[in-house]
């Protein structure tokens, strides 16, 4: 792989407004900017309709952006089109990406061929990929005869086989069972590391993103609302989420007292014990929590920091963003 220091992908004030017959406007992508360093594996997250697919297609020139600039490996995409496409490959969401009437191998040869790769020279690598994705015995089977998971893996193989420094994967694990999805993400992770490729991966499957990506960009309503390393995000949320077990049923008025101070409060009470889950708005609020518990006469049996996962973090960020938007609309 060629070595590029600097920036693999730069998106600058990218904007796409769809106009539906003049009247309605959809701001699918609303002036987003981000940069991806070479070798980075970035997750693109967001609820349905957040603008992930539109962003990816704008970067690839499949959708013409309303405004903004995209550069790949330091070269402006618009002025180097379509030659610049030799640096990127993609599995696109929702479409088949493959010829169902051709075999796995024929598809690989075709898509790398129109990418400008001589097929003989890369045969070994194709074989290696097919092997890695567990498709070796399906090599010569027509794609339409494969299961959904195998089709999806074939699409990923066809993209990776182009050996581009930059790879876009839009929902590569859609419709895969737990095992296949696990296998796919392990393989992706290994390959990204081994070959030092830059990967932008969009998925609703948080386990996949958490496992494969080091950094996430979270979008809602066409905007970037978080862009951070997963490790850092985990750290941020980790310090604030607690789980406590109290002896006996919940003391009178405890729930109401806590609810006034701590968001995300959940209290589950049985005659023998009470479980409390909450988040601290500020790190030092732990003292206030202790005071409230002592005043209520509670006995703490257990206290633990909740291990956040990406899914919870994602939901929390998206929820906050929605609240902010609602608030900003009320004058």
């Amino acid at each position: 792989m060629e070595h590029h220091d600097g920036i693999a992908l730069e998106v600058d004030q990218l904007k796409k407004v769809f106009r539906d017959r003049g009247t309605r406007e959809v701001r699918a992508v609303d002036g987003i900017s981000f940069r991806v360093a070479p070798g980075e594996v970035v997750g693109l997250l967001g609820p349905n309709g957040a603008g992930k697919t539109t962003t990816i297609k704008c970067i690839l020139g499949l959708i013409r952006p309303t405004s903004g600039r995209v550069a790949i490996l330091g070269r402006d995409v618009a002025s180097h089109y379509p030659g610049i496409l030799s640096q990127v490959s993609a599995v696109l969401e929702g479409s088949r990406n493959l010829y169902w009437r051709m075999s796995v191998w024929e598809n690989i040869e075709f898509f790398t061929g129109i990418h400008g790769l001589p097929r003989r020279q890369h045969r070994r690598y194709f074989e290696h990929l097919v092997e890695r994705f567990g498709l070796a015995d399906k090599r010569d089977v027509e794609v339409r005869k494969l299961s959904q998971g195998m089709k999806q893996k074939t699409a990923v193989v066809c993209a990776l086989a182009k050996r581009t420094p930059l790879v876009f994967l839009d929902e590569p694990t859609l419709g895969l069972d737990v095992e296949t999805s696990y296998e796919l993400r392990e393989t992706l992770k290994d390959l990204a590391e081994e070959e030092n490729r830059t990967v932008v991966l969009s998925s609703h499957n948080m386990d996949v993103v958490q496992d494969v990506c080091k950094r996430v960009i979270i979008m809602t309503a066409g905007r970037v609302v978080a862009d951070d390393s997963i490790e850092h995000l985990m750290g941020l949320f980790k310090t604030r989420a607690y789980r406590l077990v109290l002896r006996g049923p919940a003391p009178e008025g405890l729930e109401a007292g806590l609810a006034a101070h701590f968001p995300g409060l959940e209290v589950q009470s049985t005659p023998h014990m009470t479980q409390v889950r909450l988040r601290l708005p500020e790190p030092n609020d732990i003292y206030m929590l202790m005071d409230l518990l002592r005043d209520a006469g509670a006995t703490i049996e257990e206290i633990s920091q909740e291990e956040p996962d990406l899914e919870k973090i994602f939901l929390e960020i998206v929820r906050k963003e929605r609240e902010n938007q609602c608030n900003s609309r009320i004058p």
Partner: protein
Amino acid sequence: MQLAHTLTAVARRNITMMKRYLFNTVSALISVYMVFCLAFFGMKAFAAASASRALDGTFEGTIVGFFVWTLAIFGYSGLSWELINEAQTGTLEQLYLSPAGFKWVCTFNLMVDFLVNVAAAVVFLFAMMATTGRWLNLDVASIAPLLIVTVLGAYGAGFALGGLALVFKRIQAFFQIVQFAFIGCLVIPWRIPWARFLPLSMGNGLIYRVMAEGKRLWELPAADVLTALAVGAAYLAVGLAVFSTCERAAKARGLLGHY
């Protein structure tokens, strides 16, 4: 060099697909042949009944017409169906990701298909000549250039319809109307002044003169040949213009991957 790999890939794909869809290819040829037989034996019965020689030369005209029509139809439908199908099967966007540019993928596809279509049309031509017992003048050096000039118009229509399919998606009905319009273009005598500006017409007339009347290319009136070329090129240019306008609209409205 990269373009060469793209060409190879497209050629290999088309041949693979043709093998997979062999039944379709063969049955398309057979049905055109059957339509021809109907037309031929119908005319023959009519000529016998009217006991006139009015239809003399018409058989030759019919053979030439069918020959040009199959090539035009295969070229036109191959191109526009390709675009419609690619959009429907979700491979179109992948083709648009070729660093050579989609236009080269498309051009190579068209060139490969053209060669295959010519082979099929020649087989069909011999079948027609054998059926009717009328052996036409097969002066390849004269026919080949005229054929290319003639089908330019069909490819123009193919590009235009393919482009419209990118934006409007469901245009199958329209697609078939154009197919029949081609028959009209081939049947209208090209000596009618305005008919020479229709796609296929003029070229078809010139091919008839080579195949049925035994003329060589350079014996044909240069003005006619140039007109046929200009008309074909004009239709192709208009078709390409429609295609790029539609492509731009499809990219602006995010329609390339939709169907």
